[in-house]
């Protein structure tokens, strides 16, 4: 589904990714772990198409398409979802309006008919219920006044509504208490655990992986994947730290 080859990327002239290669097949959950500054968030932003990140070498193909050639919104329409480490507050734009615009814009890009107001509200209400989010929060401006946990929960509601093929979740576990972690973990499994879908979990810690069991764990250090393994690698990292393993 996703094939990254020898990816080099820089921001403000500083090289962050230095030859990263990774293949994610349909039905797989991959976890990317690594110390601060290794380039984990940069990888997410480069895959999401954030302006300012320049790819200087390498390639990324998604379902056979050159992902780097697509605009950020086209990547979303192609089925890529980027869950933010710090979801952005948007005063004056309600969650409902934002999500309906987003979903219908994706559908338009894919030449699909827009959902009616009623169809959309039913979908949004259902996803909010499943993630234990109060429906009233959907009417509030996007993330404004939300707690850290509520913002992450909102990311999952959004993911449920747009129903992507491939999700890159950047530290979705940070700022969550134990109960919220379980809700978010369950959400990821419910929405994304399917034979035709895949997930790239970017995380610092093992604890989310207790809920979302990865098929593969990769250690990212200094812009490259320095080690890959199964879920036991995450446990090893948790007990031994990155120093020995990343070296």
């Amino acid at each position: 589904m996703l094939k990254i080859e020898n990816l080099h990327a820089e921001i403000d002239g500083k090289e962050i990714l230095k030859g990263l290669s990774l293949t994610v097949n349909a039905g797989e959950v991959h976890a990317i772990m690594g110390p601060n500054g290794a380039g984990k968030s940069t990888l997410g932003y480069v895959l999401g198409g954030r302006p300012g990140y320049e790819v200087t070498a390498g390639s990324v193909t998604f379902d056979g398409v050159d992902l780097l050639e697509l605009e950020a919104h086209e990547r979303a329409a192609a089925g890529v979802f980027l869950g933010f480490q710090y979801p952005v507050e948007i005063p004056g734009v309600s969650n409902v309006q934002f999500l309906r615009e987003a979903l219908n814009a994706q559908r338009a890009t894919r030449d699909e008919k827009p959902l009616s107001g009623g169809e959309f509200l039913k979908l949004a209400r259902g996803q909010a219920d499943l993630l234990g989010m109060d429906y009233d929060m959907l009417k509030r401006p996007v993330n404004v006044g939300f707690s850290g946990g509520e913002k992450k929960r909102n990311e999952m509601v959004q993911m449920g509504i747009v129903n992507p093929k491939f999700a890159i979740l950047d530290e979705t576990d940070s700022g969550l208490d134990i109960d919220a972690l379980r809700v978010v973990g369950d959400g990821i499994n419910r929405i994304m655990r399917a034979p035709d879908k895949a997930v790239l979990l970017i995380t610092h810690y093992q604890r989310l992986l207790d809920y979302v069991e990865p098929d593969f764990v990769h250690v990212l250090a200094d812009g490259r994947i320095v080690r890959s393994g199964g879920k036991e690698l995450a446990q090893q990292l948790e007990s031994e730290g990155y120093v020995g393993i990343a070296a």
Partner: protein
Amino acid sequence: MSSLSQILPGTGRGTSEAGGGGAPLGVSSVEAPLHPAATRRGPPPRAGEDLRAELPSTREESWRWGDPAAIVAAAELPRGVASDAGEWFLDLPGARAVFVDGVLDEARSDLRHVAIAQIDGGAHVLGRRTTGTGWSIRVEANAEAELFQIVHIATGGENQLPAEIMLADGASASVVETYVGAGWSNRSTRMTLGKGAKLTRAVRLLQTDGFVSLRDEVDIHAGASLIATVLGAGDAGTRIDGSIIVSGDDAFAEYGGALLTRNDQRQECAVSVRHAALNGQSKQIWRAVAADKSTASLAARVEVARDAQKTDGVQSLRGLLLQRTATVNLKPELEIFADDVKCAHGATVGELDQRALFYMQSRGIPHAKAQALLTRAFVGDAFVQIADETVREAFVADADAWLERAL
């Protein structure tokens, strides 16, 4: 203003005896306006050198961001054909008027409680030029007037139109005005709100070319309330001059809006609210959005007289630059002589939040649409005081239409 004696007859004044509205409803319990009447009157000049000499210079502080040359250019636009007014009326009951180049189009108007009368445009440099035949609403004590909608169609050249709204104690009225077409449309509207009176006014400036200048003078008596909202979302130049006096205790004045500019357009407002009585409240919420090489300027002033204790003023001026070649000027002014006063004020200019733009794009919203959503949210702050949903939706739709063109 020594050249008044040389002024040629006006070209745009509504001189026809357009009546048809019946007698005004009102009684004469409304006090005379505080603003002195014009001492010299006369028809406006033709465009050109005479007009240029009549207009203020940008060396004057209150016109430092003004664009008198654009007024002259607008007045010189050739006359054309009046567009259809129907599409500009909102789907609301009440009285309606169509003014074509400042002249009432009786066939397309239904004046009801509105009268056509000789009206003094006041002493203001632009306002006084309107002195002549205009529209008048007088509402008697404790009466509620129907909504009055006006579509002003300019076809070129200059046109002048004075107006007055006189609300007796406890009366209420609501006016919606829409400006379309091209040319220089110059207006003076003098409003007096008796004790406990309520006036809501909404003005949509949608001319595609030329210039619209509004002079508003309002006197608000005890316990009365004014809510006025102006949206500049056309391609014409704009000058909004407002002088609001809160002369009675416990009165409320809200005067704000949004100016959206693009290409090399210039729009500006210069509005002052003077608190002269106890317990007054005022709000000035203005938003400016400037694209391309345009300039939007907001000058808002609050004066609190020595005796106007317990005044509660809010002033919020915010500008948004859609490109770095655009300009937003903000001039918030507070002059406070009372010592027990609350006056909140803020003035900021910025660009769209790049993080928010990317967040929206990452969810599938194209860049231009994301810009439009964020800009609409920014502008929306200036429309929240519009109580009538149909009017508010029209303002939002006008802003959306502007965004479609600008982005």
